[in-house]
């Protein structure tokens, strides 16, 4: 049975239809990659799934329960956790405080216990050396990892990652990819990730969904989708699609 089921999801912003009848399902323990050009509706899809936006039509189900339009904090506490494309640290707080707050929001008490757990998460994400730094002044690559660390602190059941590798140089990507692989292998976390770096998509994804202009253009096996002429056309232009 699918853990996350999105059925017929649509969302408009005044005249612009950002999502058109999107239907996707994600099985437990699966890693689903979402690809598509800028403006394809990928982040809007995440926003509708996690309660940042209420969809106009369609439903989102988590473990069979309808969670459409539920508030983001309620869903986060139930293990549906997301990261953001643009980093959103609690800028005046230290790195460890950012993560401790996430642990505490799960109800972990006392604070010392939450801090111990946060310390382990910082180590896991390679942020231990940055524990006391003010998060708002961290380098981009470190803030990216902090996004991930804060999400991990929520003990995610389903993790939605919005371009978690963007802005990282290749040497910085590798440990993040290893971490994501270990999350699936050791923790059984189900993941949906938006990504433009195709090598990462190929390496992590069990399946891929290609979005274009708010709709699902293709979905299925990674190689099949990437070889699909419509997908090639959407990414590279019609003449390349015809050639494929």
């Amino acid at each position, binding site marked *: 049975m699918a853990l996350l089921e999105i059925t017929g999801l649509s969302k408009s912003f005044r005249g612009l239809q950002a999502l058109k009848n999107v239907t996707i399902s994600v099985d437990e323990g699966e890693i689903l990659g979402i690809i598509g050009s800028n403006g394809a509706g990928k982040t809007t899809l995440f926003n509708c799934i996690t309660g940042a936006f209420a969809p106009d039509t369609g439903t989102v189900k988590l473990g069979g329960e309808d969670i459409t339009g539920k508030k983001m904090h309620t869903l986060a506490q139930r293990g549906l956790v*997301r990261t953001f494309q643009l980093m959103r*640290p609690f800028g005046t707080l230290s790195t460890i405080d*950012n993560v401790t*707050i996430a642990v505490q*929001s*799960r109800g972990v008490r006392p604070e010392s216990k939450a801090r111990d757990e946060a310390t382990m998460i910082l180590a896991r994400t390679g942020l231990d050396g940055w*524990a006391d730094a003010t998060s708002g002044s961290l380098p981009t690559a470190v803030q990216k990892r902090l996004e991930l660390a804060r999400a991990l*602190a929520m003990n995610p059941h389903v993790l939605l990652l919005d371009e978690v590798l963007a802005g990282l140089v290749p040497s910085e990507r590798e440990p993040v990819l290893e971490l994501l692989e270990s999350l699936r292998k050791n923790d059984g976390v189900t993941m949906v990730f938006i990504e433009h770096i195709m090598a990462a998509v190929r390496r992590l994804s069990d399946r891929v969904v290609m979005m274009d202009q708010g709709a699902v253009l293709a979905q299925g096996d990674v190689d099949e989708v990437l070889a699909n002429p419509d997908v090639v056309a959407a990414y590279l232009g019609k003449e390349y699609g015809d050639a494929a």
Partner: protein
Amino acid sequence: MSFSTKTVRQPEPAAATGTLISRRVSSSNHTWNLVLVGAVLVLGIVLPFILPAAELGIAMRILIFALMGVGWNMMSGFGGMFSFGHAAFFGIGAYTTAFLLVEVGLTPWLGMIVGMVISAAAAVGISYLALRYQLRGAYYALSTFAFAEMLRLFVIGNESLNKTVGFTVPVMFGDNWGMFQFRAGSPVYFWIGTAMLVIVMLFCIWFLRSRAGRFSIATRDDELAASAVGIPTLRYKLTLVAISAAITALAGALYLQFYMFIDPDLAFGATVSNNAIITAVVGGVGTLWGPVLGAVIVAPLSDLVTELLRHPPEWLSFLEGLDGLDILVYAVVLIAFVLLLPKGIVGTFLGRRKK
């Protein structure tokens, strides 16, 4: 490679060290805060013995400004919800205490608690509506301003609240602790004001260190990210609003008991809101001690400038009797503060220390 999955199961020793450092930094700040509270307490006890009785009025003004500034700062500095209408909460505190004292005969001690509760409830009500319907930034600030102005007009037109006349506290002879009234120039007012400020500061320190306080600051820093880590942001915003309004109402009650008079302009006028904002801005918005330091500068400033213009030294004698110039000087000094120290005095100091 900067980190590997080898660190997954067993954290590096450095991580533990990081936490220890973090705890040490936090505990050192906490110690400093408690030392400063102690210093305020000692200064508050000693000052009436040092200051001439005539200066105690200015000292009381500092305490009232400090409470107003600390109150405003909780909501606008630590909560990120800029208020332009704190006069509403100050006025509710003063008027509730006055009404219950004059019309019902209730002791101001209970009257001020009732005022704090009503003020907090009103603040939560108006903020719930504003935040629920996505009023943000300048629009939220305008809604608080409108609320204060609405209350001012309501009081002016309300017979049972004595319209524009307001309330005068019935004078008693001698000291009366039960009715919060002491002989003119008594240092007891100052000691009570100091005690209130100390209690408020201890409460703020405790709150900001608590889980709820950290959630509130996270919400201020980034509301969407706070929601994404499971924080019910509206709840924590409203908590700060309630705390802020209650502290400001306390300042209103203290004002009433010291000056023994209140009217709609003194309670709900825009000047009251401005004073709360300016106090925090000069000291440092979003810093614990900024509003207290701001009050020490702002509260006496108007009086000192007025006095200087009334009796200027010989070389400034041409300024004598120039009505309204005191307000101009006051404004220029404040603009200079905002331009030169946009983070306020404490904010600038803390910023430099971090570097």
